């Protein structure tokens, strides 16, 4: 018998009390589905507030001002990483750009900032979700550099976690980001920044 056979046999033996005709659906689970109510301007406001509560910087702007808004947010970045498929219109003049085409990890570590878009934002928790599709970079790109500037459009917001989950594609990898990297491991004092970006700046468009 393989380990697989043994473990599965143990599981079946342990579950002898479960009637053979019972199906998973017979175990009733009561839960409310995701809400379909449209978001209001108040939601956008709340999202900005909640992101800021994690000590991330949030800047709001109208679409026409986006590039101008980005300039001061990238002031302290000397080398900026951009996903190779970041839309042209999103690349501000200013810091030196490097396009990420599978940059070796060592070189990634020498870059100090990264600019990406996101898949969606969750109002209730102030969370940004990346599914690492176009404009969002591979997972390491938003992890190794110390400053992450992330552009999100107001129509990408969803109300809560259930609404986020139904909108995401499970075949993609996801990174959920709620503020900069943090730890409270030393005497429970919250400190921003251990391994992920120590600075998170969010531009909320529209």
């Amino acid at each position, binding site marked *: 018998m393989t*380990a697989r056979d043994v*473990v599965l046999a143990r599981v079946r033996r342990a579950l002898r009390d479960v009637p053979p005709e019972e199906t998973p659906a017979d*175990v009733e689970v009561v839960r409310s589905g995701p809400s379909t109510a449209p978001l209001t301007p108040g939601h956008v406001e709340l999202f900005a507030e909640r992101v800021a509560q994690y000590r991330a910087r949030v800047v709001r702007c109208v679409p026409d001002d986006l590039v101008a808004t980005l300039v001061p947010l990238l002031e302290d970045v000397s080398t900026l990483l951009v996903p190779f498929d970041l839309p042209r219109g999103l690349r501000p003049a200013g810091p030196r750009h490097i396009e990420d085409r599978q940059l070796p990890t060592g070189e990634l570590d020498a870059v100090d900032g990264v600019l990406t878009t996101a898949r969606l934002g969750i109002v209730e928790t102030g969370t940004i979700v990346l599914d690492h599709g176009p404009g969002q970079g591979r997972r390491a790109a938003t992890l190794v550099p110390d400053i992450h500037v992330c552009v999100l459009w107001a129509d990408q917001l969803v109300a809560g976690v259930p609404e986020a*989950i139904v909108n995401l594609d499970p075949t993609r990898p996801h990174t959920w980001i709620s503020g900069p990297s943090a730890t409270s491991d030393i005497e429970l004092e919250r400190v921003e920044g*251990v391994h992920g970006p120590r600075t998170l700046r969010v531009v909320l468009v529209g």
Partner: protein
Amino acid sequence: MSATFVGMPTFPVAAGTALADSQLRRNLAHATSTIRTKRAEVVREVDAWEQLRVAGATLKDRTLRHLDVYLEQLETALTAAGATVHWARDADEANRIVVDIARLHGTDEVVKVKSMTTAEIGLNDALEAAGIHAWETDLAELIVQLGDDLPSHILVPAIHRNRAEIREIFLREMERVGRPAPADLTDAPLELAAAARDHLREKFLRARVAVSGANFAVAETGTLAVVESEGNGRMCLTLPEVLISIVGIEKLLPTWADLDVFLQTLPRSSTGERMNPYTSLWSGVTPGDGPQQVHVVLLDNGRTDVLADTVGRQALRCIRCSACLNICPVYERTGGHSYGSVYPGPIGAILNPMMRGVGQDAQLDALPYASSLCGACFDVCPVRIDIPEVLVHLRTKVVDAHRGRRPTPQDLVMRAASWTLASSARTARSTRLAGLAARVLSRRGLRSAPGGRRVLGALPRPAAGWSGARDVPLPPAESFRSWWSRAGRDAR
């Protein structure tokens, strides 16, 4: 370390030592009360909290009652996503699988993201024995590892260390295993965190193999989830070429949509945040992004024994949030080390004896008694595990396992007590005797409990075992009965 810390004294003995450590008690009280308050605030924000608890409990029950089906489904989904699935009956088998994979890739080091499961199976020791260094990358785990210490809390394993101690450990130990701490390091948490960042960065960039656990495993999609704060998890899950995730078979969820319940309840119950800084979700291999060789080890190691216990099965719902630790009056005072296991607190008190079996080990058999059955753990548990119910159930099992052996002094005392209390005349006589005894005893053998209460010292045999774990208050010189018959009538 194995599932219980080797050579660990039983709970009552270890608790006695912990209680005397006032630094530990202060740190613990501060930690547990701070997290408790934060949790209460963010839980209050959620109107449907109780529904989420019920949904979480029933989703886990659905999974557990049909676990064989979901395990096979998970295996199929993971394999389709490019992962290699391994099965491990016990700790040794899981450790061997990890060692073999590391050897296959010719590496002498792995980076690790904090995982209770790998602590449970003693993976670090197994790797060291095979000549492979296992680098813990969670800040608290790093502190524990560098300090050659044991974790004391699921969530904040180094809560028993203060900043000055951490600074000392970093200055002394970092240079032995890699990049040294800066010589001018102060004990400011920000600086200590920065030292850890620099120390570990070279390891993240260099390591070819990473080991993780998983908070959830979705059967339908093969998705694994790692919920964390620092970004060390993301480093491990993303930078190395090879990723090995060790997943206890109780971590499964049926569908992707089910994640929403737990991604709401876990962060709020655990760190008291609306959401933790980072959550990673992935399924197998993503071409061009992250590890291109992904292994998943499905681990039993006693879990099927818990599953077979129809009362105790609910313990497998546990999502390791640590809310029950933070609310527990026993844990708050004795700390995690007293439980002698990587699973401390109320959940540890039921999980450890069930995973390892009762009636063989005094250390494990003592755990179901490490509770006042106040029920606070059930109230905070996001998956509604009725811990007091399981504790009582296990006490019965412990007693049953010892039945037929020579009666212990405790058995004899209980028998005598039930004979005495069955008659009011006998009760009255015995309280008068106790008062008399108190007057005699107050002249000798007294000591002070924490807080200055006068208590009896160790009682002579055969009561020594009982008084060893309890402070015996000095009996009152006069019983209530005799006070009432003397003064009560006048008061009327």
